């Protein structure tokens, strides 16, 4: 049994690098939820998300001695998890778009077309179980090049620099992709809430 880990700063990197299982268990406890959230949203499948997480943590444990500490442990784990998810996806669908490929979106596709004003509807009316489910489905509709940027920055709350570090893209690319992802999702949610209001 271990105590609950509390913060990333409390992780003993020396013990971790030496392969100490208790220290590794603390890291798993601290990051499992966050990495599961990333794996689930990238894959869209809870069973696949579990497999991604297992594979990612095994890979992290095997390579822990190579962790240099230039990024924090969390960013390092997010990167391993995302790369694991992507590799598994490529095996299943070889034509999967990579994060480092140019964003193939016509700028016209990002122009707002929905102007239904749902921002001030009280949350108890806005956020039904169905609406939360739709929010999850809308993420699955995001282009692959935008999805991880939005998940890491706006859902997980990483900084722009951390997202860039995790995905190995520039901060300018993070900002640009984040903006496109937000516009895309705003459009989907606006369609959904407009339809619901009209029903």
């Amino acid at each position, binding site marked *: 049994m271990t105590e609950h880990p509390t913060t990333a700063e409390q992780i003993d990197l020396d013990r971790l690098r030496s392969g100490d*299982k*208790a220290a590794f268990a603390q890291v798993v406890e601290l990051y499992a939820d966050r990495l599961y*959230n990333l794996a689930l949203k990238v894959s869209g499948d809870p069973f696949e998300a579990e497999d991604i997480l297992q594979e990612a943590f095994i890979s992290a444990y095997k390579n822990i001695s190579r962790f240099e500490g230039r990024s924090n442990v969390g960013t390092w784990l997010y990167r391993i998890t995302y790369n694991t998810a992507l590799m598994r996806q490529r095996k299943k669908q070889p034509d999967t778009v990579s994060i480092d490929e140019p964003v193939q979106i016509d700028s016209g596709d990002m122009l707002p077309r929905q*102007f239904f004003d749902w*921002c001030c509807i009280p949350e108890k009316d806005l956020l039904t179980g169905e609406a939360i489910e739709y929010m999850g489905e809308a993420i699955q509709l995001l282009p692959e090049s935008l999805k991880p940027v939005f998940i890491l920055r706006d859902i997980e709350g990483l900084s722009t620099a951390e997202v860039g570090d995790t995905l190995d893209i520039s901060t300018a690319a993070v900002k640009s992709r984040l903006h496109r992802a937000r516009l895309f999702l705003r459009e989907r949610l606006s369609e959904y809430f407009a339809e619901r209001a009209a029903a």
Partner: protein
Amino acid sequence: MDKHTHHHEGGSSCHELLEGLSLYLDGDAEESLCREIEYHMKDCENCRVVVNTLAKTVELYHEHGKTQMPQEAKQRLFIALDLGDYMSSSE
């Protein structure tokens, strides 16, 4: 904005301002851009809706977009990693 793109007198078009909206919402926009957006929104209802619903989209996903790993899945993970002895006492 496709149907209502217009220039306000002495100001920017909706389309021109669209690119800067995330910077504006994140507090990363230059002061001059903030002023332009706020000036533009005063008499552009559609842009006001876009800014407000964009901000709400970000807020909703930040507050309600996380999915917690089910306890059983976490237990399976610890066992698969041969860390069953280290599962925290809450599990």
